[in-house]
């Protein structure tokens, strides 16, 4: 396959809205990938997205590049057959499969329509990037950020040689000891957002997608009326253990309209906090093998984001 993209890299909003079909945790392997592809194909027909976004935990058998390629070829087939553009971020499970994400990224990018990028060198991980959505005259209407939320917090400990453990008996934000969006990645968003404003003389409305929730997402189910929570929360929001400041960066910049993460077998909710639409998307492939579905984001030309569910 060709390393070069057969598609134009810039996304374009030609109609009244831009539609992003997002699926989190396909957990695809040799056993379920045909069924996933079939379901995805049906969902795409119903949702008619402009972009398909894979929000982490995409495959379960990426132990080597060839196995990953085989699985991706099957699940991406319905996307590529329709000539659709797509992008992805890695989830915590993508990292523990055996193949380093940097190597996996090469495999992902070898498929037609892939807009994912290895991304900013100043930001930790693989796959911190932004995708502008342009109007017909080439002016940006919206900006989509994908961030790598890493895996367990031990990675955060070892990357910076922490002399002490991040894992305490009573952490601030839940006991799941996950890594997440680190401060340097918040800085990547912060700097990008500022330079976009500098270049275009206005703030570009944006959405940020990644796999593992940020701490502020736990505030929503705790305050369902204040944040107007819709959907279901049937387990604690498992979020990163050391806060990297992304939410405050977003509200201080004032250009982020939505932040969504996955990483839950049971939760599928969203609400509004600090004027940002935030939520957690349920895994596509559930433990018993059944499929739940995905989330459709519809962005209008003013940058407003609305969210709806697309069942499998």
């Amino acid at each position: 396959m060709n390393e070069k993209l057969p598609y134009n890299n810039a996304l374009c909003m030609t109609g009244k809205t831009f539609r992003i079909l997002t699926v989190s945790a396909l957990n695809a392997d040799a056993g379920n990938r045909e069924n996933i592809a079939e379901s995805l194909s049906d969902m795409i027909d119903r949702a008619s997205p402009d972009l398909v976004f894979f929000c982490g935990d995409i495959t379960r058998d990426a132990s080597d590049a060839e196995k990953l390629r085989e699985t991706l070829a099957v699940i991406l087939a319905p996307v590529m057959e329709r000539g659709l553009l797509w992008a992805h971020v890695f989830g915590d499970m993508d990292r523990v499969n055996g193949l380093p994400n940097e190597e996996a990224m090469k495999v992902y990018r070898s498929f037609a329509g892939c807009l994912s990028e290895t991304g900013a060198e100043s930001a930790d991980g693989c796959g911190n990037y932004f995708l502008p959505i342009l109007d017909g005259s080439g002016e940006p209407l919206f900006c989509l950020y994908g961030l790598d939320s890493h895996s367990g917090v031990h990675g955060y400990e070892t990357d910076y040689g922490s002399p002490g453990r991040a894992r305490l008996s009573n952490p601030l934000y839940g006991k799941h000891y996950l890594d997440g969006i680190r401060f340097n990645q918040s800085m990547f968003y912060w700097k990008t957002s500022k330079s976009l404003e500098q270049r275009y003389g206005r703030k570009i409305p944006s959405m940020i997608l990644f796999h593992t929730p940020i701490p502020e997402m736990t505030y929503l189910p705790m305050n369902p009326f204040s944040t107007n929570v819709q959907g279901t929360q049937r387990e604690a929001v498992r979020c990163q253990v050391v806060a990297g400041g992304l939410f405050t960066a977003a509200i201080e910049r004032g250009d982020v309209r939505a932040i969504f993460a996955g990483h839950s077998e049971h939760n599928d909710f969203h609400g509004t906090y600090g004027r940002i639409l935030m939520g957690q998307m349920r895994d596509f492939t559930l433990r018993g093998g059944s499929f739940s579905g995905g989330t459709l984001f519809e962005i209008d030309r003013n940058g407003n984001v609305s969210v709806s569910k697309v069942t499998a």
Partner: protein
Amino acid sequence: MNDYLSGALETKFPLCCGEDGKFRVLCVSDFHAQPEERWDPRLKLSLEALIRAHRPNLVFIAGDLCHEEEGLGSDEKLREYLADVMELCETEKIAWAHVPGNHDREDGIPPHIFEEFPMCLSRRGNAELSGYGTYAIPVWPHGGETADGPVCMVWAFDSHTGVGRYAERIGLRPEELELPNIRFSFDGYDSVNFNQAAWYWELSEALEKEYGRKIPGVMLMHAPPAEHFLIPTNPWQTEMSGEFDEAVGGALLNSGLFAAAYERGDIREIVSGHDHINSISGMYMGIRLTEDAGLGFDVYGDNRIRGGRLMEFSETDPAHYETCHVYIKDLLTPDEIAGKNA
């Protein structure tokens, strides 16, 4: 040094290590002088006892110098208050500096009055940053400024007031950030905001680039970042010392200041005031998190722990860092502390 760095590191006079090649900063907080009455003389007695005993090169007041937002009612009274309490620093030529706390805001305690004092290094800081008083003080060797860079950095942060005012500053309504159910902040305090953490990050990176090494430092502020809560809730794992007698008035939102410090790897300790009867200190991921206990007598406090935090760097050994809580009970008689000799 480029313009960005020299501007960011500008101070009224160079702050240097002592003759012994050491730099000691004494962090005290929460004086809470009341507008309607004269401040308790035990504040000055205590502060001077601490200074004479521990010979700091910088006395840092981590907020809440005044109890009311309108300060002491007049500029003249504030001037008189500072001239009295900081007299020893001014006469002995000891540098001092401050940041505002949630009780004293810039409209109540005008910063220019601080800057009038020759030994005061408080700065407005970068005007693009939220609040008033987020600035960095480089500490030079005893011999003065050198091309090898500072011995260490003192990072001062305005930690603001409540999360509702944070909302208003960034164009939101208070109720868009205030929440009824919050986990670790009993009334929704603010702390250091993201733009201030980003300022630290960029200046810390620029310092490393300029001098080819990480410059060790301490962060001083009034209201603690949320991570301070981890110390009393994990006392064994964080090897907590000190007294813990009230809830940590931590921030509802987390700007990632702790994560920034951890990822940059140049911060030894983050010290806050705010909680008058806590002198907790513990280690999390290689960074010490500390509350310095209140010193003032015009507000609630605890004579068992009244004092401050003493930190020490060395110009010859970048790895040298010592820190401890220092007590007025070791320096004053029980009668003096009880105010019986007044």
